[in-house]
Structures are given as C-alpha cells and as structure tokens.
C-alpha cells in the first residue's frame, strides 16, 4: 500500500478466541511500585511465539 504502512501487531481478536492463561505479570499503572502498565506486559502463554 502506497500511503499506508501497517505495523506487525498481535491480533487482539484472535487472542479472544484462544482465551487468556492468566500467567502474565500483574500490572500496576500507578506511581509507587514496579508500575507496569498493561501495554508493556509480556504474554506468557506457552503456545504464543
């Protein structure tokens, strides 16, 4: 596409079908501790590449 470049991203709709495993790090967006936001998590699901 000439005017549009699409970055490679995880497909959220696909992830809805697979379901969550709940293994990823707990995230806190607030100021006072490890302060990890949702977006900077790593997925820990085993069948995920």
């Amino acid at each position, binding site marked *: 596409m000439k005017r549009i470049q699409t970055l490679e991203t995880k497909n959220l*709709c696909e992830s809805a079908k697979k379901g969550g495993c709940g293994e990823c790090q*707990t*995230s806190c967006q607030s100021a006072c501790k490890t302060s990890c936001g949702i977006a900077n998590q790593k997925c820990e699901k085993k069948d995920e590449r």
Partner: protein
Amino acid sequence: MVHQYKLNGYHIVLDTCSGSVHAVDEVAYDIIGLYEEKTEEEITAQILEKYRGREDVTREEIRLCLADVAKLKQQGKLFTPDTYAPLANEFKERSGNVVKALCLHVAHTCNLNCAYCFASQGKYHGERALMSFETGKRALDFLIEHSGSRTNLEVDFFGGEPLMNWEVVKQLVLYARSVEKEHRKNFRFTLTTNGMLIDDDVIDFANREMSNVVLSLDGRKEVHDRLRVDYAGNGSFDRIVPKFQKLVAARGGKNYYMRGTFTHQNPDFTRDIDEMLRLGFTELSMEPVVCAPADPAALTQEDLTVVLKEYELLAQKMLDAKREGKEFTFYHYMIDLTKGPCIYKRISGCGSGTEYMAVTPWGDLYPCHQFVGEEKYKLGDIWNGISNHGAQEEFCACNAYTRKECEDCWAKLYCSGGCAANAYHAAGSVSGIYAAGCELFKKRMECAVMLQVADALPRQE
C-alpha cells in the same frame, strides 16, 4: 474504534479493537478520518479540494487509497467493531478466586520522611510495624493455596522501607524457594527501596533473588533532596546514589528501575531523566505524584500542560539517544506490539482486590498497596481469607467496560479502565475515573506507539 493522531512528524492510526497500528501519509490520514462518515464521492471531492495543486493527489490516487482502506477494514485491521464487552465478565468468572500476586508490606516504617509519601512515611496512617516471619510465611502459604493452576506467583517486598526488615525478607525468599517446586510454582520477587540501607549483602541477595528492583530517585539533586529527606531534614541524594550505582553495576543486566516522582516542583521532569542518565542509569521511570489536590506537591492544571509537553520531549530524546547509540528505556513507553498481552488482560487490568492484594505487617488483606489503611476496603486476612465480599465485588467489577467515561475512550484497551486507587481518590469511587490521569495516560500511549512507528519506518519529518 479508530484513533488518529500526529506526533513528531508521523501520522498514526490506531485500530484499537484489533490492536493494529498504521503509519500513513497525510492524505490517507484524512481519508481514514472521513471514511465512516462520508460517501466515497464526498471524500474524493473534499480531498481534491484540500490538496489542490498537489500532483500526487489525483482522483485515481484517492480511489486507490480508498480501496486500501476498504481492504484493511475487510481484513479486520481498521474500523474493527468493539465486541469485547461480553468477554469482560466471562473472564472474571473464569478466573474464579485465584490470587497470583501479593504485595507484602514487610515494614510499615521508614528511614526517610518524604514529604509526599502516599503511605505517610510508611505508616499508612496507622502504627509503625514490622511483619514477622510467621506472618510473611503464612502470606506466602495463602498465596500458594489460592493460586489455583497459576505457575508464576509474584511477591513484592514493599513498605514503608522493606530493607528495615531485611532479615525477614531474606527468610521469606528462602522459604518460598524451599516450597515452590513441590507446589509447582515459580516465585518472582521484586523489591522497592529508597536505597538508604543498601549494602553488599543486599546487593548480593537482591541481584540473585529479585527479578526486579525498583530504586527510588527523583532525579536532580535539588529536586530529590527537597522532598526525600531523613528525619533530621537532610536530603538523601548523596547517600543513596553511590549505593544505587553499585547495585546496578552488580546486577549484570537483570531488570531494575530507577523510579522518580514528579510533583508541582518539577513538572519539567525530563531534566530529572537527564540527571538519571548522567548518573549512568538507563532503565527509568518517572511518575506523577499521588496525593490530595490540596497538597502543596499536587500537580496543578498548568503543571499538567507542561507534563504533556514533557512526555513528547522525552519521546524525542529517546529517539535521538537511540540514533546516537545511547539507548535508554522509559517504563511507560515500553510497549510490545507483537508479543504483548492478550485481550483478556487488556480488559481486566491490574487485578487489584482479585488476583492481586496487599498484606499488612499484621496479615490483613487489602485490594492493593494504595488501599492499605482504608478500613472499608479491608478484605479479610491471610488466616481466614476474604470476609468482606461486598468490597471485593466492587473490584471484581472493575474493567475496561465498567465505566461509562471509558465507553468512547480509544485508550481503554491499553489502560483497562484505569487505576482503581486513583479513581477512588479523585472521584470518590473505585468505579470512577481520574480524568487528569487519563490525559497523561493517553499522551504516554501516543508517545509509546509513535516510538514503535519510528522504529519500524525510515526517518520522516
């Protein structure tokens, strides 16, 4: 939902429900902006008018671009409808009463007397106290018992100042390590410290056992020393910086974070980031202060305007640094577009009061560290479990789809509906929002995605 913005010379289009990110030119940017509202004829006319005289903007060019947009939509990468609301409840039900992370308040006391401390010098508006080994051990057992099939369990050593109860911290780590295999668990420990008591033993043990260490430093000496003082009123900068440097040097690349707080006195926090870099630290985080609006440290409306600009400036600095081979990390700009969390995590957020709880020195359970001391949110204790089901329900119900303010917000799948504690303090209810925080959050996400775009594309501007 589609969110479009321009930053640092890039035209960026986010399709939030599919998670897609598009970097486009200005023509496509405008076309996408009109696509759902106008007919193709109307769009063509409007674009031709706007770009009159531009050779590359012809009827045929516009037709091609419209076709590309249609194709992306068909592929589920643009204008993806929001169909996740039903998942929000399903996920909570499915995760049941699993607890997978605890914040252990091993020391409700502190050797510093920081003016802005949300925990009121570690006491959380209560008595000074240290957690006993027995209580901590019971908390770890509680975690194992309630963790269901989860393997990775997280424990934060928090305070007050956790190093004031260091022997207990070490014993608890050793205890957890001695039982994790038989229960098929994997403990991940983190430590948040002000640095005053760091010594070789702490460095050695923390670097071996803690998967992350959070070190509190506010940046410039004059900024740091104004608020982060000891009980005699003396600044702590000169005492802690060499200790932090030693710890980080010995850490051998393992995760750590330098985290600072910015307040009314330093909304221009990128200058504090500069200082952290100058001191040799590269994993950085600066956070807005958490305090009552009447507090002198609280950020004013004007400060917030400055802060928004600072976030952009910071992103620019990071790009420059990277080009010069002096890369550094800002916590809130770390976003993993390809391997980040699934939609379930994006909807359900921090898990405070459900999968994550805080434990006081005497074993009471609270929804998270920021609720400790709020009596009505005391959930129960580590011996008898949860007794305050009403309060827990409130937290269970928190997700990206609970708040009406979030309904039309493009950021909801990045923020999950925000921080319940911020909402509680700003709006008086955990199911409210902290509007000023939303603005900062959205700006941070825009910057984070822009950095990804800059990485993926050749230089524009």
